[in-house]
């Protein structure tokens, strides 16, 4: 117990702890986003992308829901159409970047050590190890985690959140911060639906709508090549939209921040 960190405060004695504002203390109003420094860096990253007409996509999900498998299938399908590049985020190993490089695609691995998410500074450092000229789509595969990555803007234009059918269909209700941030939700491994009797894709979609999220929901299996066409068509459309935005000097932040400044009155 001490008098400095507040560990001696209990609900019972809290009212006694009030101390009058010390002489010479002045209150300063700040009203700035707590993650302003990350957000500034993210805006800078976004400028890098916009200057080159790149569409940057942040892939988020639980570990093991098939982000890397989706990327492998996507990169193979788009091989002759676009130049893609990938940033991989994991706590350890270069494994995922090696899987991407095996497809002949430029990949940079960020090893976060113990950090549970990527932030804008980590992505910026990664960009300095990459050749961005000529790249059409940059995929950023975030650390597998349905909690922390949602709070950090990386400079991407779109968030894509994966939910594999081996997880519960109520994941959007359990992790609302993450799924509210999705610009598209992919239900993955749908080939397994036949042997699972407890995942209802319609329910998963209903839980997403309960978060007031109008994002498209696509059902696919990267391994069995099911439903990939809708996903690839969505990517083509979003790349065209990004190029149109860049042509008129505009950009786009991912879903989670879109409403904020506009609707908050404080």
């Amino acid at each position, binding site marked *: 117990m001490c008098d*400095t*960190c*507040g560990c001696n405060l209990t609900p019972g004695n809290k009212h006694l702890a009030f101390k009058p*504002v*010390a002489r*010479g*203390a*002045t*209150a*300063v*109003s*700040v*009203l*700035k*986003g*707590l*993650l*302003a*420094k*990350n957000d500034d860096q993210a805006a800078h990253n976004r400028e890098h992308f916009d200057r080159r007409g790149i569409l940057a996509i942040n892939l988020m999900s639980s570990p093991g829901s098939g982000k890397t498998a989706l990327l492998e299938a996507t990169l193979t399908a788009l091989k002759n159409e676009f130049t893609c590049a990938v940033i991989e985020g994991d706590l350890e190993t270069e494994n995922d970047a090696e899987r991407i490089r095996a497809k002949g695609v430029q990949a940079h691995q960020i090893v976060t050590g113990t*950090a*549970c*998410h990527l*932030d804008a500074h980590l992505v910026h450092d990664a960009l300095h190890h990459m050749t961005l000229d000529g790249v059409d789509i940059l995929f950023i595969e975030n650390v597998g985690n349905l*909690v*922390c990555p*949602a*709070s*950090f803007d990386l400079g991407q234009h779109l968030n894509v959140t994966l939910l594999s059918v081996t997880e519960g269909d109520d994941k*959007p*209700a*359990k992790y*609302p*911060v*993450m799924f*509210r941030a999705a610009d598209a939700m992919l239900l993955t491994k749908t080939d397994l639906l036949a042997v699972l009797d407890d995942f209802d894709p319609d329910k998963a979609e209903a*839980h997403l*709508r*309960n*978060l*007031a999220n*109008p994002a498209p929901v696509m059902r696919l299996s990267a391994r069995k090549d099911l439903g990939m066409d809708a996903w690839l068509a969505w990517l083509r459309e979003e790349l065209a939209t990004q190029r149109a935005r860049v042509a008129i000097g505009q950009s786009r932040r991912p879903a*989670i921040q879109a*409403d*904020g400044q506009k*609707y*908050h*009155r*404080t």
Partner: protein
Amino acid sequence: MHELAVAQALVEQVDAVIDQHGATLASLIRVRIGPLAGVVPELLASAFPLAAAGSRMEHAELEFAHAPIKVRCQTCSAETEAAMNRLVCGACGDWHTQIISGDELLLESVELINDTPLDSPLSAHPNV
């Protein structure tokens, strides 16, 4: 777990405010964190002393302002309170809503202390 990263960002921001105002230290830091911000106030409160150790806000009190979740319906225009995983209109039940409060992650204000004695009009002028 990312609350430590948020605490470090908070310390950097408060540090900048202390510099801007030429103050000595911060005594009170008031933040507003909505349930939808993805940051748990209790975890931030326990991470803060680690991030602030040795800094000019080491002994500052961290205060949290309440930010209830409120949505505005795009269909019926009602403004209602909502639950974290049910952001639908409380009046008509439509899910086409906009968050108007509850996703804030803001440094609202800081109380600063300046130990350097200011020139007081009552103190004797050196030339008198």
